């Protein structure tokens, strides 16, 4: 799930979340920014392959993974 409010999705125990830096009403990026759109979708699909309780933080070039409060850099 994409989250704009990670505190909320953490409380609701969403199994896997992608925290994005975008605005309410634009969770997958700005209109007509299709490169970002594809990046978001790819990172969501990458997320589906991760264990439960994984939160990925969306980044343009790489993905940082927060797992149970720790930080590790994903590939």
């Amino acid at each position: 799930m994409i989250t704009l409010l990670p505190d909320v999705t953490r409380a609701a125990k969403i199994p896997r979340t992608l925290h994005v830096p975008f605005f309410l009403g634009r969770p997958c990026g700005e209109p007509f920014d299709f490169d970002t759109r594809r990046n978001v979708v790819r990172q969501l699909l990458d997320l589906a392959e991760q264990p439960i309780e994984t939160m990925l933080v969306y980044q343009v070039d790489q993905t940082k993974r927060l797992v149970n409060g720790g930080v590790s850099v994903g590939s």
Partner: protein
Amino acid sequence: MRLLRKLYFFLRSKIAIAWSKLLPASYNKFTLSNTKKHTYTPEAGLTKPLNECRVALITSAGVHLKTDPPFHVETLEGDPSIRIIPADAAVEDLSVTHIYYDTKHAKADISIVFPLEQLQELATAGTIGSLSNLNIGVNGGTLNHTPHEVETAPMVARMMKEEGVDIALLTPG
């Protein structure tokens, strides 16, 4: 009376949108205070590679086909109904009904809340096994989350299981 009702929800919409933009920390705190806290995380994992998976898209942003009735938004009770969007839906076939976020951006480019087109590309490229015909739009704009939890979510989960969906991607508004 009808006019008063429209005015009430118009103002409510404007206030909610302004609040989320101007006072995000407060908006976050309010949303969190109205979130049902769960105590366990559901177990669910993939049993096949991505290029064999059927993927579905679910959004609470109020997306629906233009030919479908819009969500009922002028209600404090919320609208727990769903809209089904097939895999081959074109961008121009889609619309959005919501009053608690600014929909002008989504109406210009629906993929910012519902990236179906990007999933269609990935299905064509073989990156994912297939795109489900059971892509779902709901309207999450309510503080009354019980009908969504008790009726809508279990129904959608059953439908997706019957459809053979392996991955459901969720987007907010």
